[in-house]
Every structure is written in structure tokens, then in C-alpha cells.
């Protein structure tokens, strides 16, 4: 038995509003299943579960705004009998509203009388606090710890009890200006401000720039697209992203999340892609496992992510697991973009708008399509020499006739 809690969808997120449950008690779930929708500063996000099991009691109702870490549901881990909690079960309203659409939950397996100690293994707590919480049937996740590293102490348990029921549902102002539905522009601005301020405060950036001749890549792309219907055409952005992801194999330390010491690069490339919102603001959802995708697959993933960023829903893994971010200005921007790293990532690659420029090619000055690529990287984990190797590798890959 474990507790499924309000996930953190970014270092700056403090709370989220539960919009909808996509599961009901008794449902079997596997790792990666989408179980709920939560409204955040980045819009409505589909929440995946990271453990297999059977959904027990739902502990939060749609409409509630809950702090990060607040219990949302009980999860019976596979091959463990479900424990029904006689105390915490604010279910009737949910059951009633969903009863019409959904079959009745399967009867729970015979409930074993178990001391309510199992949940909370992931929470730092003193042994005394753990024992007392179990005795009182309190989920440690729900208690604010005052000990080292936020550990829950015995006194925190007593305070939690004497404080009475927590004011879990805090009404939020509903009259703020809205961009697309479910997206609060003021909140998004605040989220960007928090992340970027943290980046400039904590990350010693260094910057490199390099001009790349894109003419041959452009010619290959044009030839490729000429034989394709519009739905199968590629954009230059897919080439750029593909080359960038491939180049990380040569300088792997630029790919990772610096959230624990010591820093360790990520084996997989979850490539964030900055998507600008027309009303202002941006979101950088990640293409997961981009290192194994060819340009066509990259393009399909980009289409899907952009569409869901604009009008649909992103998943929490897409906005919390990025290991590097690429920001591209598209066709109608300025020459170069020097980025701010999205923490806890350690590098951001910026592409300016490709533009025809006079370049020396085969010994003569010719009009060639060119793009300026920049790298903003964390000097704690890499140096300019390695960064330069990375940018020249992107250049080299874009000249290769074999790609795509």
C-alpha cells in the first residue's frame, strides 16, 4: 500500500488543483497510466502514476486545490490486499457523480487489519514520529516536517493532530486574466520568473556561438518534402533537433539534471522544446527518449507536443523530466538567441532564424542559408572546450548527406 500524492511539476510549484479523476477505486493501474488531471501554472496536466497497483480510496475531490505532497489516493501495490481506511474516505460525492458513467467498483478484497504504517516510507521521519503516526493512522505525507531536510519529528505529529483537519481546499481567485482555457497567464508569468531567477542565481552560465551553413541541409529537406504530402513533410526544426540530440552522444555531460550531488549525466535524452504561446509565455515540454528517434519520428513528436501544448494536455513526465532544452526562433525571428538554462538542466541550445547570408563556400562568396546556434551551459559541469566540441558536432551532422 502506498499513497499517491500531488506531484511537483516544477521547482516553483506549490499547489495544484485537481480537475478530474480518470480512475476509480478498484481500477488496476500500471506504471505510466494517466490517472488524473491537475491544473497548474502550465495549464492542465495529465498526471501519470509511477507505480503499478490497484486504486484504493480517492482522498481528494475534483475542484480541490492541494499542496504538493498532499495525498490524492491510496494505491494497493500489486499482490498486496487492499486496505480500506475507515477514517479517510471522502468518496460519496465522487462516487455519486461518476456512478452513472462507470460500472460499480469491484468489491475490495477482504480487508486485512493492518497497522497503517506502510505508507510514508518515502517520507523522512524519525522512528518515534513514524510509530506515533502509524498509531494515529496519519499519513506522514500530510505532515509538515520541521526536522533536518524536512524530516517529520514526533512534535510535528502532535502539532498536526492538535491543528485539526487541514484546510486542504483553498479557494483560488477565478477572475484572473486567461489565455487559452485552463492556462492562467499571470501564473505562467510567475512560473517563468521563478525558474529563470533561480537559474541566473544558481547556475554559472557560459555561452558559445557558432554559425552553421544550412544550405545543403535545406536543399535535402526541399527535395525530401517535394515528394511528400503536407502531413508527412519535415521542418528544418526537426533536422536541428535531431542533430542536436545526436551530438550529445559526443559530449554527454551537457545532458542531465543537476538536482543531486554529485551531478551525473542522464543516459537518455529527454529533449525539451520551447513552445511559445501566442498570448505570451512559453512552455518547454520534452520529447522523451529522443536519442533513439530518426528525423521523421522527431517531427511526429514535435507535431504532437506543439498541438497538445496549444490546445490539449501535456503529461507530467513531459514537463518534469527534460534533460536539455532547445529553443528555436523559427523562420521569422532574429539572428541569434542566447538562452537561460531551465533548472535543474545544465544546457540550453538556441537556434536563431535561418537566413540567407554571404558565406565563403568552395573558395567564393555565395549566398547561403545559415543559422547561428548558441549554447548556454552550466560551468559547474562542463567547460567551453567541451561545449565547442558539441556545437561543431551539430554543424558536422547537419552537413552529412546521410541525414535524413
Amino acid at each position, binding site marked *: 500500500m502506498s499513497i499517491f500524492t500531488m506531484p511537483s511539476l516544477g521547482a516553483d510549484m506549490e499547489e495544484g488543483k485537481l480537475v478530474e479523476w480518470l480512475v476509480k477505486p478498484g481500477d488496476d493501474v500500471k506504471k505510466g497510466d494517466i490517472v488524473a488531471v491537475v491544473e497548474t501554472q502550465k495549464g492542465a496536466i495529465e498526471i501519470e502514476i509511477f507505480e503499478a497497483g490497484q486504486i484504493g480510496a480517492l482522498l481528494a475531490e475534483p475542484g480541490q486545490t492541494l499542496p504538493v505532497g498532499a495525498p490524492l489516493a491510496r494505491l494497493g501495490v500489486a499482490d498486496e490486499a487492499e486496505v480500506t481506511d475507515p477514517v479517510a474516505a471522502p468518496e460519496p460525492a465522487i462516487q455519486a457523480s461518476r456512478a452513472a458513467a462507470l460500472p460499480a467498483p469491484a468489491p475490495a478484497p477482504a480487508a486485512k487489519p493492518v497497522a497503517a504504517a506502510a505508507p510514508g516510507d518515502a517520507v523522512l521521519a524519525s522512528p518515534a514520529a513514524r510509530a506515533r503516526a502509524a498509531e494515529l493512522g496519519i499519513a506522514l505525507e500530510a505532515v509538515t516536517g520541521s526536522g533536518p531536510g524536512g524530516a517529520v519529528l514526533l512534535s510535528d505529529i502532535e502539532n498536526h493532530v492538535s491543528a485539526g483537519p487541514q484546510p486542504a481546499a483553498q479557494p483560488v481567485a477565478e477572475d484572473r486574466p486567461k489565455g487559452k482555457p485552463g492556462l492562467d497567464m499571470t501564473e505562467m508569468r510567475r512560473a517563468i520568473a521563478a525558474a529563470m531567477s533561480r537559474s541566473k542565481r544558481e547556475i554559472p552560465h557560459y555561452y558559445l556561438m557558432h554559425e552553421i551553413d544550412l544550405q545543403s541541409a535545406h536543399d535535402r529537406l*526541399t527535395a525530401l518534402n517535394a515528394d511528400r504530402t*503536407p*502531413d508527412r*513533410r519535415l521542418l528544418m*526544426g526537426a533536422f536541428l533537433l535531431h542533430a542536436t540530440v545526436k551530438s550529445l552522444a559526443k559530449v554527454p555531460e551537457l545532458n542531465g539534471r543537476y538536482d543531486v550531488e554529485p551531478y551525473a549525466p542522464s543516459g537518455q535524452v529527454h529533449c525539451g522544446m520551447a513552445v511559445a504561446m501566442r498570448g505570451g509565455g512559453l512552455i518547454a515540454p520534452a520529447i522523451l527518449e529522443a536519442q533513439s528517434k530518426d528525423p521523421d519520428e522527431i517531427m511526429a513528436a514535435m507535431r504532437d507536443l*506543439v498541438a497538445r501544448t496549444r490546445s490539449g494536455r501535456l503529461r507530467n513526465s513531459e514537463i518534469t523530466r527534460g534533460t536539455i532544452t532547445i529553443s528555436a526562433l523559427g523562420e521569422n525571428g532574429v539572428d541569434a538567441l542566447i538562452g537561460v538554462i531551465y533548472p535543474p538542466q545544465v544546457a540550453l541550445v538556441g537556434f536563431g532564424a535561418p537566413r540567407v547570408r554571404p558565406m565563403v563556400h568552395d573558395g567564393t562568396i555565395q549566398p547561403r542559408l545559415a543559422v547561428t546556434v548558441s549554447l548556454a551551459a552550466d560551468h559547474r559541469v562542463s567547460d567551453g572546450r567541451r561545449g565547442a566540441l558539441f556545437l561543431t558536432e551539430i554543424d558536422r551532422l547537419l552537413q552529412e548527406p546521410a541525414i535524413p
Partner: protein
Amino acid sequence: MTPTDLRAAFIADLTAVAPDLDPAAIGDNDHMQDDLGLDSMDFLNLVSALHKRFGLPIPEADYPRLATAALAVAYLDQALAE
């Protein structure tokens, strides 16, 4: 299809790829990228939708002829007549 029908179809596909645009506020001469803020992905999705609706190939070389609603209606009208 009359030019009015073509325009309605074009605006429908445009607002499907850019749901934050108000159909009533799109002017005939608004430029897709410069005025309406479409990026290259949005524009490609618009071309894909028009391809699906009208069965036209719409090669990349013709993209500038879709830059505004007025241009697009003229282009679609001509392409469908051929």
C-alpha cells in the same frame, strides 16, 4: 465552392490549428506569421488540413500564396478549377 465558402473553410482550418485565434477578428489581409503569430509548425498543420480538405498537393513553393486569407481564397479557387 464560392469564395465565401472557401474563406469559411480556410478560417475553420486556421482556427483549428490555432484555437486561440478569434475567427471574427481575422482580417483578409492579416499575414499568417507576421500578424497572426503562426509559427512554422502551425503553418504546416494548416497546409496539412487544407490538403486533407481539398485534396490539393500544395507544394512548398506555393506556401507564400497562403500567406493571408485573401491570397489563400484566390489560390484555392484557382487550384480547384485546374
